């Protein structure tokens, strides 16, 4: 299992702030997790549109980044703090 987290618009669009997700195969990547999430519900397709960022274990990652059992995988829009 991996831990999915969402923030800001991604959280509001999916209405899921955090949940566990089984890893479907060995050597998964962020791209694979996105495929799984898009199939979860139509709102996930909207939420994962261009511009959404991903952090694996709180480090910002590209789609090619590996995702392993127990990882925290977060999706959120570009930041607007300060």
């Amino acid at each position: 299992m991996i831990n999915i987290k969402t923030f800001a618009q991604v959280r509001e669009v999916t209405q899921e702030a955090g949940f566990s997700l089984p890893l479907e195969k060995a050597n998964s990547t962020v791209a694979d997790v996105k495929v799984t999430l898009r199939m979860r519900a139509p709102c996930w397709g909207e939420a994962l549109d261009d511009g959404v960022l991903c952090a694996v274990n709180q480090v910002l990652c590209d789609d090619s980044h590996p995702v392993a059992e127990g990882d925290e995988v977060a999706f959120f829009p570009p930041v607007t703090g300060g």
Partner: protein
Amino acid sequence: MGACITSTPLTITAYHEALQRAVPKAGAIVTFTGQVRDYNQQGPISGIHLEHYPGMTENALTKLVTQAIARFSLLDAHVVHRIGDINNYAPIVWVGTAASHRKAAFDGACYVMDLLKQSVPLWKKEYQGEQGVWVQTKASDDHAAMAWLKESPKGEEK
């Protein structure tokens, strides 16, 4: 060095005094206080809400301050960021830098604020009455700016 997130009102004076106590021999101290403005490009607003990523936000702020200290040879640097509901005119963020000379202190504080705006996982919603609207940014700009966050916070600093 300090980086901290709080949901309670910022106590600017206390932060300033703490920085001064931490490095009493500093030749130059610069502070920045960012406060909620009562308007945006669409008109008046009635306050904001700031969402953060618990853990990652603190790590990003810590990394940012550590990098600023190394890059500008600062004697010390602190950052405190408020989250949650914040009224108009209230402080949102405070940055303090201490250095031997004024240019480093100014440059360090500017750097922390520039990168903070672009690369710390905080999201701002602006309220017009009950209606909250997420502040938008250009994803393209932001992707580039966030690149530095891709280095592990525990990894080697460049």
